[in-house]
């Protein structure tokens, strides 16, 4: 089962978490994990624990903020939200990603056409 799912590229998880929070608003860790799973249509293999490592990294850089709230089954859960500087960072990262992905794609296309 693992072989069918792509391993996550280094650093892309942070980008996905930021994007998720940008689109969905404040969420807790479980929700973020579910959302990434849905959107990527189960194609990405995600150790859900790593989401928390990513959340801590983003928090340390002050790109997201955290506050305590209640989860779906009414327990204490930590909700994360993107900050303005996080949004700026996301814009930069997305541009970066598009540029890289485009470039890599062109190279691969060329090879396929040869």
């Amino acid at each position, binding site marked *: 089962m693992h072989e069918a799912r792509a391993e996550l590229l280094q650093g892309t998880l942070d980008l996905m978490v930021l994007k998720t929070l940008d689109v969905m608003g404040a969420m807790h860790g479980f929700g973020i994990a579910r959302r990434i799973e849905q959107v990527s249509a189960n194609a990405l293999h995600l150790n*859900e624990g790593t989401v*928390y490592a990513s959340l801590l990294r983003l928090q*340390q850089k*002050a790109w997201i903020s955290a506050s305590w709230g209640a989860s779906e089954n009414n327990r204490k859960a930590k909700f994360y939200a993107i900050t303005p500087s996080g949004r700026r960072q996301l814009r930069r990262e997305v541009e970066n990603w598009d540029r890289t992905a485009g470039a890599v794609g062109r190279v691969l296309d060329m090879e396929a056409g040869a």
Partner: protein
Amino acid sequence: MWRFRLLASRLRGAFLPDPSGREFHLEIEEHLRLLEERFRRQGLSPADVRLAARREFGGIAQLHEHLRETRGLPFLENLGRDLVFSLRMIRKQPGFSLMVIAILAIGLGANTAIFSLVNGILLHPLPFPHPENLVAIFERNVLDHGISDYSVAPANYFDLQKQATTLDRIAAISYARLNLSGTPDGAAPERIDVCACSAGLFDTIGTMPAVGRGFRPEEDRPDAPPVAVISYDLWKQRFQGSPRALSGVIKLDSRLYTVIGVMPPGFSYPARSIQAWIPIQTWLPPVVLQAHDNHVLTVIGRLRMGVGMAQANAEIDAIIGRYQRQHPEEVMGTGARIVPLADSEGKDVRKLLLFLFGAVSCVLLIACVNVANLLLSRAAARRREVSIRTALGAARGRIVRQLLMESIVLSLLGGSAGMLLALELINRLVDWSPGATWVPQAVTIRPDPTVFFFSLSAAVAAGVFAGLLPALRITTSADLARNLKETGRVATPGRSLDRFRDILVASEVALALILLAAAGVLIRSFGHLVTTNLGLGTSNRLIMRLSLPDTRYHERLQVSSFLKELTAQLQSIPGVLGVGLSSCPAITLPGFCPDSVFQIEHRAPRAGHPMDAQYRGVNPDFFRAAGIPVLRGRAFTPSDGIGVDDKNPLPGAAVINQAFAREFFPTEDPIDRFITLYWFVGNNPERSVLRYRIVGISGDVLERPQTPAQPTFYLPLLDGDSTEVSIILHTAAGGTVAGAARSVLQKIDPDLAVFGVQSMDESLHETTGDRQFVMTLLAAFAGMAMVLASVGLYGVVSWGVSQSVKEIAIRIALGANSGEVHRMVLLRGLRPALLGITTGIPAAAFLTRLMRGLLFGVRPLDPVTFTLVPLLLVTVTVLACSLPAIRATRVDPTTGLRVD
């Protein structure tokens, strides 16, 4: 920006108590619960639900670990943990730790102290603005004596002052010791060092008085009213630091000087002992100031901006050379040369300090090796602990860091203790060092931050070296398995580390041998020095000096009658057997006594090589009182002088020493020959030709044991030409006459300060003082080296015994007697010691050969030293091994075999 926030957040994480660790736990728990619920809804069994949730989430422990590391500053935290652990280890082994700290403290303390002297004197610039532009000027080739640099004659100084364009400023310096009169409010008369200088001295070196002002040019004239600038210390002492000093006066040699300025505290040019500065032209008599042949001045100058040494040198050389060519009859330099002032100051101290620095560096090296050795033995003892930790998964870097931290902490502790020791030593060294007071930089000798940093880094480097080596060795994975095995199961432990330690100990022994040999030959030289027959009586001789103020003893007749009165009075003191008076101390530093050119009647003067010899004025009883034999002819009588008429001197009598006879009368009989001098007599402004008939030949007196006797002629002191008088009293054994002699002098003239009252033996001690200083320090360093080396030997051998208990137990069980065990342990220590001794001897021989200039009466390869020192080291080795050896013979085979 985010980088900064990241650091701030990590710092918060590292130092604040961490509530989110618990929060995080809660967060993850909740996540798992939500996952489980989801799987439950998908229809899994309760047992599978839990497992699936865990699998989906991934490693919880790893996540926690990861978070701990990213949340704080793991490097810092680990460092802190290592530090705490190190301190605990150090406390747990107080004996070992104290030993390491003490060894490092001794090595570093001594090294820092000597390095501070080196730094203060050799590496520091002179404590004046733009010291690089300051130069000293010397006349070249005044006499054909093989001396290159001569002091400058006053008239030549004035020529330079007028003509030199490459120098911005130029100043002349002369020294005097004057009687500073007592004051009505109780200050006793004392003898102080005074610098007679040209008005521009302070401008030249660039330091002005802190209070008041420096000299004006019009105050530096022969007829100017006397003024003085005083030292800060004298100001505090005589004027209580009051600004009123500026209108006050001090009385120097019965002459009143108005105080016009006070130098800043610590100002020490031209010497630390100078208490007052007076204008040179009010001090030197006009005849001297006009002389081209009286080489008495130290001359310094400041280069004009943009002028190089070579350019200035050429000009100065040309000015002096030109005058000499125009006046070939003058006894003066054929030219002059300039040297950077910093180089001309403290020249003698320089060599000595470098030598001591080399020696003390050896001690530091031994200390470091020793510490490395001690740490190695402890590391070996902890091999097992380390192996187990490694086997349990501790990262190698982590363990190495831990071991390193321990040695660094130890080194830092040792370094700090060493600094305290150094502070103490530096103060003492500056006081002890006989040369240091004559170096202007001496005042700047203090342990400055650079020196502190140097020592501390040396300590830490030693710690890292000592810590890294064993740390790397015992954590090498190939070693691990063997370590685990070796330490427990086999009778004798691993040999490779031991071999390395043997080499360390051998090098310690070799270094100690080198230092001991160097100290040995110096001590032997010193023994020769103090037992050398100097050619005069040294026991039961009391010497003292006094100086008659020129102002009150202006006429030769006044001086002469004072001296006669003085002789009679001193002679009448009970216990005084003889009274010798002389114009210059019988034993003194070379160059202290004046010399003069002369001619021998009926002999053509040597062109370009005037004859020159030292002279002393002495009273008739001098030779008997000083114990100098008159070998031929006779000593003086009271009627041998040149008479009282300055303008028409009578022929006088002279006594020469053997060196004089050898040098100037190698084939003829000097008795009844005449020598002629061209001198100023009394107050006659014209030079007279003085004739002296040689009436006797006296034995040679060595001023210093290591230098040959100077050709000397003695003239009758009762002619009254010298106002400097040294007294030598031959006393009955055991009598003390110093007090009586003082009161006699006080009675004749209460204004006279008597100084330098000491026994001849004490005075001799002074002339050998700097040598004794080097010798004492070197002996101390050598002693330290030996102690450290023996500690190293002891450490190796006793470690060897403790590791071989099982082997020893087996041998004893198999029937070895205690003698054999004893021998085995002894050999264990003797092997590296002998290796060190055999490699040390050639190195020591090389060093003592370099020291030849410091030796006297001893060859560099002194057989006594080179026999005794190795023997001493062997003895020390045997002693160091004997304790562990005895312990080894007491090993009980039954318990010994059970030792792990």
